[in-house]
């Protein structure tokens, strides 16, 4: 998944004041003795690009004396490909829910000792027993969001209500961008046809494939990492996208909107986990606990503009953030949305073959 998670470039600048406040906090941090809490060594943190607060990692180093080695990945597939042959030295990783499932199955994740993460108490109980990791044995929630439709308000008569408007109708021919994620795009086609996005029966898959092949001439792009750029630049007027990506360009352009279609979209959750073979396990726990701290969590959420599952952090956030319908969709749009379940290797092959046919068509 090529979600781009960087803070808004064009956000009108409370940023600067926040930055100053942040440095003040760091100043205070410096005066604190490292004392009894101080730990030795380092922690290798493998995260999505710019998916962290502005000073979070420095603050962590100041608070604990643990040095953070920070490395970035571009999508879950890359993370998985690097770990499947043996952990190359990461201590904390940030996989998305369906990949958590896949990694548990592949025995790539270490069971977590909850007693070493006291800040678990901050997490909204709604997030504590997900189907992909019952009882949170292997992962703790970091951020969550949805996949829906970003659109240019002035170019549509009404906000797109249904996935069919971009996946079936010719209303917006030549103005549509889809993600280049085989699983996600086929899942949204299944949603449009009234099925669960996890019901990968042969008929559903075939129908979704046929739908996309028929629609292909009207689609401008399968965008790997830049659907929101195409929307912002006016190359397309509607784009299947991650909510955070659209949130970012909404801050640059008032004419952009985001909607979760009535059939529901995809719910995703990024998690914090410790891969098997981690060398600095104690430090990994310290980092995870730090990231789940209320103030730290609020700082990150404010900076990157994604929804936090941390109830204590959310309580500290501004009204603007808490009531933003892009970050926190309305109840009724949420109720039809689903999280993706890893369909198994055999199905993945069928899905990829269907996708190859879609991409080769026309």
């Amino acid at each position, binding site marked *: 998944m090529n979600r781009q998670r960087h803070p808004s470039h064009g956000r009108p600048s409370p940023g600067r004041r926040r930055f100053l406040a942040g440095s003040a906090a760091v100043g205070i941090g410096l005066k604190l003795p490292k004392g009894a809490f101080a730990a030795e060594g380092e922690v290798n943190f493998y995260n999505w690009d710019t998916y962290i607060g502005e000073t979070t990692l420095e603050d962590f180093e100041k608070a604990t004396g643990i040095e953070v080695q920070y490395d970035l990945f571009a999508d879950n*597939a*890359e993370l998985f490909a690097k770990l499947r042959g043996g952990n190359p030295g990461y201590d904390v990783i940030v996989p998305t829910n369906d990949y958590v499932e896949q990694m548990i*199955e592949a025995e790539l994740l270490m069971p977590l000792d909850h007693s070493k993460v006291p800040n678990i108490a901050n997490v909204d109980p709604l997030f504590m027993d997900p189907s992909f990791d019952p009882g949170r044995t292997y992962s703790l929630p970091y951020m969550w969001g949805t996949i829906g439709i970003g659109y240019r308000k002035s170019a549509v008569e009404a906000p797109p209500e249904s996935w069919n408007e971009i996946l079936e109708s010719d209303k917006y021919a030549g103005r549509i961008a889809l993600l280049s994620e085989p*699983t996600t795009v086929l899942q949204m086609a299944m949603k449009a046809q009234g099925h669960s996005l996890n019901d990968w029966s042969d008929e559903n898959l075939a129908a979704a494939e046929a739908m996309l092949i028929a629609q292909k001439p009207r689609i401008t792009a399968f965008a790997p990492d*830049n659907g929101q750029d195409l929307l912002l*630049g006016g190359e397309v007027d509607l784009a299947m996208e991650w909510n955070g990506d659209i949130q970012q360009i909404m801050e640059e352009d008032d004419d952009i909107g985001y909607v979760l279609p009535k059939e529901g979209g995809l719910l995703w959750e990024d998690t914090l986990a410790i891969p098997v073979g981690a060398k600095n396990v104690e430090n990994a726990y310290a980092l995870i606990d730090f990231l789940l701290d209320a103030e730290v969590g609020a700082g990150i959420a404010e900076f990157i503009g994604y929804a936090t599952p941390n109830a204590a952090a959310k309580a500290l956030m501004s009204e603007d953030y808490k009531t933003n319908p892009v970050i926190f969709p309305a109840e009724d749009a949420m109720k039809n949305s689903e999280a993706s379940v890893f369909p198994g290797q055999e199905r993945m092959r069928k899905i990829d073959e269907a996708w*190859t046919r879609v991409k080769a068509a*026309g």
Partner: protein
Amino acid sequence: MLLWLGLFFVVPLGIIGLYSFGENVTITRIETTWTLENYARITDPVILGLFWRSLWLAGVATVICLVVGLPMALVIATASNGAKPWLLLAIMLPFWTNLLIRTYALLNILGTRGRLNDVLGWLHGKGRAFLDAIGLDGAAALGERFVPLTLLGTPAGVVYGIVYVSLPFAILPIYSSLERMDRSLLEASMDLGAGQWTTIRRVLVPLALPGILTAALITFIPALGQFLTPDLLGRGQVDMIANVIERQFKKANDWPFGSALSLVLLYVTFILIAARAFGDAARARRLERGRAA
């Protein structure tokens, strides 16, 4: 040398070879069962179609590179010694920028609302105004409104991207063979009454042929394995075979099939290089015979 070849070529290739006869036992374990299934899957018409499309697009791009590259190489080879390094530098300069950044720049230029269409739109407006001014109906001649060119998301866009990336690689080998050429042969040809076109066709091109063949190979082979260009300039609409291979190693998590595909692509490459070597050998023999006679 042998160690290097073993470490960086034979061993990795051997592993890919083993994978290509393997099966996914779990999502992370591959067992070599000597199954031929991965190769059987390549005979799927969709996959063969993608191979064919890759060969076709890479072929078109190569021909364009040669047609554009030959005159450019000729200009550099015949330039004064002072100008040569600067011309060569100008050819190489884009390589100091990362490929991804150059590709994104092309997106900005070639888009429906890109710079190229800005310029064309401006020309259209000026052209209409000019025709109206001289008493002709500009709107009728040039169209009421400017219709932007669609370049991205088409095979043309992909070919453009490949040509842009490969052109310097095509120019340099042709340049080096022209550089070594004995200039007096061209003069002799013209003195003996051959026209310019005949001289190019009968003397220049045959002399530069080794360089041209190298240029063709060096353009064609990497072009065959492109996946970034189809993804970005092709907007995911004009997939080539390397897009399928990349997906097998990442999203589809099917390394055995990906390995089989990459080996087949490698065989195609080997066949081309072998054909080139045989061609050279045959030419050398002909020359020998010519001298002996």
